[in-house]
């Protein structure tokens, strides 16, 4: 029997997760992306890579935590570089009230006092008196994780072709999954861009085992260790659709946070400054829509890596439900 074929447009985290979920269900998948190489023009490339469903509860709808929590296992299964060491939330003394508030609005954490903080993150010993430790959370390096998905797809005979510009309407295959992110605005007029900026620094004098969130009155700041002395500091949230490079103001705010976390970051080298737009719907939640043979999956906002696995399952479900010619290979589904 001829296998059901689907073209996935977009090789960001949404597209690659969809492609893998479909392939695991026996669908014949082809992935195309207009970028020249993995990450080119994709906002996933700028992501923090925190899998922090319970921390996100502080500022987002409960559905983000519900749908995001299973993604930790999903990533651990498909990307061995997933690090499950939890995350730590700290605040400057002047923002102590914010820590209490964060605790009121989240779950699955432990209050960590000075000794526990020192045990978890020796380099932060003596710097904070109280913190919140979320032991079940995880993090990953988004770029390595995307590369791992491409490899996993290649093992399954799924090609990811770059430098291919294709509209969903003209794409071949029985069905098409539109994962173009913000570029899909031509088809999704209520999609908006929420600008985010990030900095990567290299610092040999500080070691961190897990992402640290610094409560900040304006932006959810975090510092994610990327190994080899590198740290990603993110991320601003600006209601702007300007794509230009990171601004001085944002960069100063991000770097200040790192410096406040540990003065050794003052001597860190700036390796990279990045900025991009997060594709976002008005409720800041992702959505899957089917229009004939096109399924549009979009609006992952700042939860790309956290919610893409759930989104991909929904897309696969939508496509499986729409056909009975599918040759199911359930054994493949972990």
């Amino acid at each position, binding site marked *: 029997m001829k296998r059901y074929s689907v073209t996935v447009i977009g090789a960001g985290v949404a597209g690659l997760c969809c492609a893998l979920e479909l392939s695991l269900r026996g669908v014949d998948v082809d992935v195309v992306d207009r970028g020249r190489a993995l990450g080119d023009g994709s906002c996933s490339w700028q992501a923090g890579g925190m899998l922090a469903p319970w921390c996100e509860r502080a*500022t*987002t*709808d409960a559905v983000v935590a519900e749908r995001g929590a299973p993604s930790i296992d999903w990533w651990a299964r498909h990307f061995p570089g997933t690090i499950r060491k939890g995350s730590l939330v700290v605040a400057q003394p002047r923002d102590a009230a914010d820590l209490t508030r964060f605790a*009121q*609005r989240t779950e699955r954490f432990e209050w960590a006092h000075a000794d526990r903080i020192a045990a978890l993150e020796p380099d932060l010993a003596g710097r904070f008196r109280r913190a919140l430790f979320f032991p079940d959370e995880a993090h990953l390096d988004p770029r390595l994780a995307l590369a791992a998905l491409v490899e996993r797809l290649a093992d399954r005979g799924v090609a990811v072709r770059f430098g291919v510009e294709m509209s969903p309407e003209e794409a071949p295959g029985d069905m098409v999954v539109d994962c173009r992110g913000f570029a899909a605005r031509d088809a999704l007029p209520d999609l*908006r*861009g929420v*600008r985010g900026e990030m900095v990567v620094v290299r610092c040999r004098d500080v070691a961190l085992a897990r992402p640290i969130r610094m409560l900040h*009155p304006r932006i959810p700041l975090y510092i994610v260790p990327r190994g080899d002395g590198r740290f990603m500091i993110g991320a601003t949230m*600006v*209601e*702007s*659709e*300007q794509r*230009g490079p990171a*601004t001085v103001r944002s960069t100063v705010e991000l770097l200040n946070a790192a410096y406040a976390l540990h003065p050794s970051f003052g001597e860190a080298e700036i390796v990279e400054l990045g900025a991009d737009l997060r594709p976002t719907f*008005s*409720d*800041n*939640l992702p959505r899957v829509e089917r229009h004939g043979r096109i399924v549009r999956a979009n609006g992952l906002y700042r939860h790309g890596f956290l919610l893409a696995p759930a989104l991909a399952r929904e897309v696969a479900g939508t496509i499986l439900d729409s056909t009975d010619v599918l040759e199911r290979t359930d054994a493949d589904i972990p």
Partner: protein
Amino acid sequence: MSFYGVELTSRLLLGTARYPSPAVLAEAIEASKTEVVTVSLRRESGSEGAGQSFWSLVRALGVRVLPNTAGCYSVKEAVTTAHMARELFDTTWIKLEVIGEPDTLQPDVFGLVEAARILSEDGFEVFPYTTEDLVVADRLVEAGCRVLMPWGAPIGSARGLNNVYGLKSLRAHFPNIPLVVDAGLGVPSHAAAAMEMGYDAVLLNTAIAEAGDPVAMARAFALAIEAGRTAYLAQPLEPRDMAAPSTPVIGKAALGD
């Protein structure tokens, strides 16, 4: 109540920042029946038109937009931002903020008066975010402002009315200028207190946007504002030192001889 000749029913003005999502913001506006929302241009712009999507969402809310100059630290910046706002939102209203100190976000009242004068002369209708200082308020009125927005407490601090005496003096001094407590409120009772003092309205953002349930909190504030306003019109008692028995004591049956 009217601001620059525009009649309004709702005495609650809402900020639009830091809501969980624009959808929640829309629901909060509906729940609070607010008619005026304030939008920051400085932070969400960078260059012309960059925040278009968010601004379109705000425009689509069907309420009057009061653009603001939040995040401006100089007269020039504030004036430029006001001009941009006038074009973008097609309104002469501007909530003027000139920030003097980054930690407390305290207004730079000197720059504020200067910017208010420049903008008023240029046809803007200025809503200045100021302190409760009486002399500054006088200068702002002299510069052309016909609405004053003194702070309750520093922006986002949720402390309520820090200087009740100062705010009361301001009310007594400006019986005919609409006064709006802007910033620093945390809970609905703070808003009720401002309204009981005879303030015309209240402007809020963080207390609603960052509440666990912003929509319910928006409703709670709307109710408190209505309660406070009704109480003010009903002429509340003045506090006194001694008890004032509500039943007369003269003529009570005396015990003993």
